[in-house]
């Protein structure tokens, strides 16, 4: 049997400290936590930075290092620092050194690096996944960061070093949990399925904010138990978690194969725990890892104006269309910029800013926000585009006949430089002869 403690869905989200203490006394074989995902968008991967405050990360990571010492078991984090680049692995490594120094503790630390060289990836043979964007060599080479998603093999290579703390770059959410049960010879389908159920912590149970759960893996399947007061796993909450952020609730692709839970049986053991058997792991012939990449798509300046005059609220769309037309002419006149290199957009908040062309309802708003988004090849140009937009948002009349109107600006200056805007460009897999071919391990005694 392998017992894995999962403190929460991600480091930085917080966890129930009492539940964590209770879980530690249950003698886990491993504490595993996820550090990120693509869900917050391409900027984090593009810049190679964490979404969460360093202070939150340090406080929560310290709690887990103390739990690791108390439980006398390894602690592993996957996708360290939101995106799992080398820079975020090193960021968390530095935080770890500070914590160990504060605690007067020692540890063997393994760092697993997942970052790839864009020039090398551009020359590699890649297979697109469903709905992948079109890419070419130049697109790949222009990525600021590319990571490969490590699977159980790479995590096990890190565990085999005897490390107390493993700081992994990008991994699949499940790999950090499935790795040890697989190494221990537990049921492979159960290992991956239990890892998928556990990867968001107590999200597979009631009281999901409490975070802490235990997953016990054995020869036929797994048992999941939430640890907080008021947290209960039921066959319904557990099986429903397969829906979460998954395009297919029965099949989950991982490096080296896929998990099929079509035949899984979920049984309540008591009011708190659920037993799952019948999951299947189907190994693939080749070993492939998924890639994620982000690149700069331009630099942006934004402005916001608010329309409260009923006449303008009613005619907001034609007001915006007219402004875009006049702004375009002004840009051509003042800076002669090639229209193919820049972009201006006005989103009407209160009308269709969320859904755009898919919106089915018509607005009956008291006021409307107009969000201007200017995109250009560099920040200075984006700012200039914003400055050329400013007078229209402030004073543009619907007709020549009316007196010059003035609209509400919440800020001065109205132009807000947003910096680089990034986009995801890879949804592809790369075949590896050996699982460690695209990954590097560094082990230090601290």
């Amino acid at each position, binding site marked *: 049997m392998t017992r894995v403690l999962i403190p929460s869905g991600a480091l930085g989200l917080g966890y129930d400290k009492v539940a964590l203490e209770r879980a530690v006394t249950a003698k886990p074989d491993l504490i595993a936590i996820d550090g990120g995902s*693509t*869900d*917050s*968008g*391409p*900027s984090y991967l593009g810049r190679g930075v964490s979404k969460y405050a360093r202070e939150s990360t340090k406080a929560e990571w310290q709690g887990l290092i103390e739990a690791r010492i108390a439980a006398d078991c390894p602690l592993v984090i996957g996708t360290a620092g939101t995106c799992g680049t080398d820079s975020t692995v090193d960021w968390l490594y530095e935080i770890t050194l500070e914590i160990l120094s504060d605690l007067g503790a020692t540890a063997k630390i393994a760092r697993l690096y997942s970052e790839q060289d864009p020039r090398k990836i551009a020359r590699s043979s890649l297979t697109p*996944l*469903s*709905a*992948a*964007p079109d890419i070419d060599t130049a697109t790949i080479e222009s990525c600021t960061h590319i990571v490969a998603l490590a699977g159980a093999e790479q995590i096990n290579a890190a565990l085999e070093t005897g490390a107390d703390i493993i700081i992994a770059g990008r991994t699949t959410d499940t790999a950090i949990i499935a790795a040890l049960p697989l190494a221990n010879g537990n049921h492979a389908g159960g290992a991956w399925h239990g890892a998928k159920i556990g990867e968001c912590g107590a999200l597979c149970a009631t009281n999901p904010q409490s975070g802490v759960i235990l997953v016990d893996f054995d020869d036929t399947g797994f048992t999941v138990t939430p640890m907080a007061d008021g947290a209960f796993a039921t066959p*319904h909450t557990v*099986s*429903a978690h397969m*829906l*979460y*952020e*998954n*395009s*297919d*609730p*029965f099949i989950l692709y991982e490096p080296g194969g896929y998990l099929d839970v079509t035949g899984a049986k979920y049984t309540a053991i008591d009011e708190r725990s659920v037993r799952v058997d019948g999951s299947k792991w189907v190994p693939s012939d080749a070993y492939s890892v998924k890639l994620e990449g982000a690149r700069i*798509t*331009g630099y942006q300046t934004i402005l916001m104006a608010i329309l409260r005059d009923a006449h303008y609220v009613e005619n907001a769309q034609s007001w915006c269309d007219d402004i875009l037309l006049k702004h375009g002419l002004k840009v051509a006149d003042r800076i002669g910029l090639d229209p193919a290199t820049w*972009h201006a957009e006005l*989103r009407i908040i209160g009308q269709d*800013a*969320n*859904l*755009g*062309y*898919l919106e*089915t*309802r018509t607005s009956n708003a008291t006021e409307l926000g107009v969000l201007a988004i200017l*995109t250009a090849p560099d920040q200075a140009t984006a700012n200039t585009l914003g400055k050329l937009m400013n007078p229209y948002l402030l004073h543009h009349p619907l007709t020549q006949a009316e007196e010059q109107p003035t609209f509400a600006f919440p800020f001065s200056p109205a132009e807000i430089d947003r910096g680089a*805007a*990034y*986009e*995801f460009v890879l*949804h592809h897999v790369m075949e590896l002869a050996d699982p460690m071919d695209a990954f590097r391990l560094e082990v230090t005694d601290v």
Partner: protein
Amino acid sequence: MSSVSQIVQKVRSKNAGPFWLTIDIFCGTPAAYAQIVEGLSTARIAALFKTTPDQIKRFDIADLNVIKFSLPRPTIQGSRTDRDMHGAGWAPLVAELDIN
């Protein structure tokens, strides 16, 4: 005639990675599940998202009283044209559909 949201417990939309969107309709009861399975065609979901039915993956999961639709994201997450980083804002489109 009732809207989906009047019949079911909850409609949720989420990213399934940067390139896919997934919509879960939690019906709550077998009766509500039957009503949605019967009344909400894949073609209607495709039309709602201005795409074709072959782009929609559909899962009718009676054990959970859940109907799930997955489709390529209408805009790639975080791209210049994207309006909703986490993809949760598409759920109301489905929730507001009328069911006979």
